């Protein structure tokens, strides 16, 4: 079973129908464990109970970048390999990624209010994530602006790859510009600086959120494939109706023009 076997939408639908219930179950179980662990994680000695926002905020922020990464790979699939499901994957991922980015911004500002004393600060990390959010919205506008899906797919793929330049800027913005947002503390050289009692719930939550994305993404891809089938069926129906009435008028017009000639 390789990636190219999934190029057949029917095969993809069959396989995903079998996988999806297991994914849903795994997501629910991991989310329950993660939420339970984060609720019972100890309070921070400085931040108190507000530190628990981290268990929601950080996975959302990771996912907001991860989803754009997935979309970039899918865009390469559209432009280079012409994989038929790549543009379906890219289109289905955009609204999910936009939601994760919005939640990261929202929880971040709720966390920032008690910690930094402000909901919003024009610091490098916050600004670059806001740009990411605006680009998600622009991409969704692009998908909605064009009727023909394959034409929209190629335009969106170019824009997605250009936007991927923003990802390293977001990742390293806290190291390059020393501002309010704290530098990376989990994924860094020389091991994590986070205590184990925080790190384990955080990692569980990160895996749970990734599974949540995969589940939602596959479900959205199935919807998109079915939506396209409905659309092509409607087009066929419309062209059949138009053709059957067209034959009548065309033959009449033909006889009329012959009459004129």
């Amino acid at each position, binding site marked *: 079973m390789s990636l190219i076997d999934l190029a057949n939408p029917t095969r993809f639908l069959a396989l995903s129908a079998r996988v999806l219930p297991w994914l849903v179950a795994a997501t629910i179980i991991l989310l329950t464990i993660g939420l339970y662990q984060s609720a019972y994680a100890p309070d921070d000695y400085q931040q108190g109970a507000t530190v628990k926002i981290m268990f929601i905020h950080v996975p959302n922020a990771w996912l907001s970048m991860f989803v754009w990464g997935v979309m970039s790979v899918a865009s390469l699939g559209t432009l280079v390999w012409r994989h038929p499901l790549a543009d379906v994957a890219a289109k289905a991922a955009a609204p999910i990624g936009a939601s994760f980015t919005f939640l990261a911004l929202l929880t971040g500002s709720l966390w920032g209010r008690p910690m930094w004393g402000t909901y919003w600060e024009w610091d490098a990390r916050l600004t670059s994530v806001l740009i990411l959010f605006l*680009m998600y919205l622009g991409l969704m*506008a692009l998908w909605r602006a064009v009727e023909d899906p394959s034409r929209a797919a190629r335009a969106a793929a170019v824009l997605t790859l250009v936007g991927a330049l923003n990802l390293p800027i977001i990742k390293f913005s806290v190291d390059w510009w020393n501002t309010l947002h704290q530098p990376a503390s989990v994924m860094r050289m020389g091991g994590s600086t986070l205590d184990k009692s925080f790190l384990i719930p955080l990692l569980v939550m990160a895996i749970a959120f990734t599974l949540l994305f995969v589940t939602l993404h596959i479900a959205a891809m199935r919807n998109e494939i079915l939506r396209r089938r409905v659309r092509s069926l409607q087009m066929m129906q419309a062209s059949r109706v138009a053709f059957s009435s067209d034959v009548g008028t065309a033959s009449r017009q033909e006889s009329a023009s012959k009459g004129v000639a």
Partner: protein
Amino acid sequence: MTALAALIRRDIKIALRVGGGALIGVLFFLTVVVLMPFAVGPDLALLSRLGPAILWLGALLASLLTLDRLFMADHEDGSLDLITMSRTPLELACAAKALAHWLAAGLPLIVATPVLGLLLNLDMVATGAVALTLLAGTPALTFTGMIGAALAVTLHRGGLLMAVLVLPLSIPVLIFGVAASQAAITGPLSFGAPFSILCALSLVSLVIGPFAAAASLKHGLD
């Protein structure tokens, strides 16, 4: 090489003659700057503090205004198809078109900056700093905007969609452009660091822009 030079000369000629619309950008720039004192009040001290930001914002909007003509006119009269099919690589042709557009529509904005700086009560140093940062930064606006223009022409949707696609990409240029000019005028920070980043942004967009625009033209036109 001669083909590219001919393309640049042709584009500049079309842009500067009647109906070309390159100088509309300067007029728009002037109007935006003149509108500002009505919005914030004619306080000269406040205007000179906001001056660099107003000039940068005006230049950004003015360059966005003329960008959708970059491919649209050529697409309408069919010469864009000839350019895509010619033996010159499409990436180089796109770069040449963007360069011509910058020479015709971007440079006049920079030439107009000293006059507009006078209206905003900026002194010599401040005006010079803003003009210098605009000179370094506007190529980035043109070359990233070209991506949006190419996408818009393949989708037969111009105007607002292009603004939505291009504006997020131009935020870094705006940030470092204003930061560099503020640093030269008042700031304790050095002028060199944000100005170098601004130049780097322009150079990066010089490479990325033509490739992305050519890719979207190649895949989108049919």
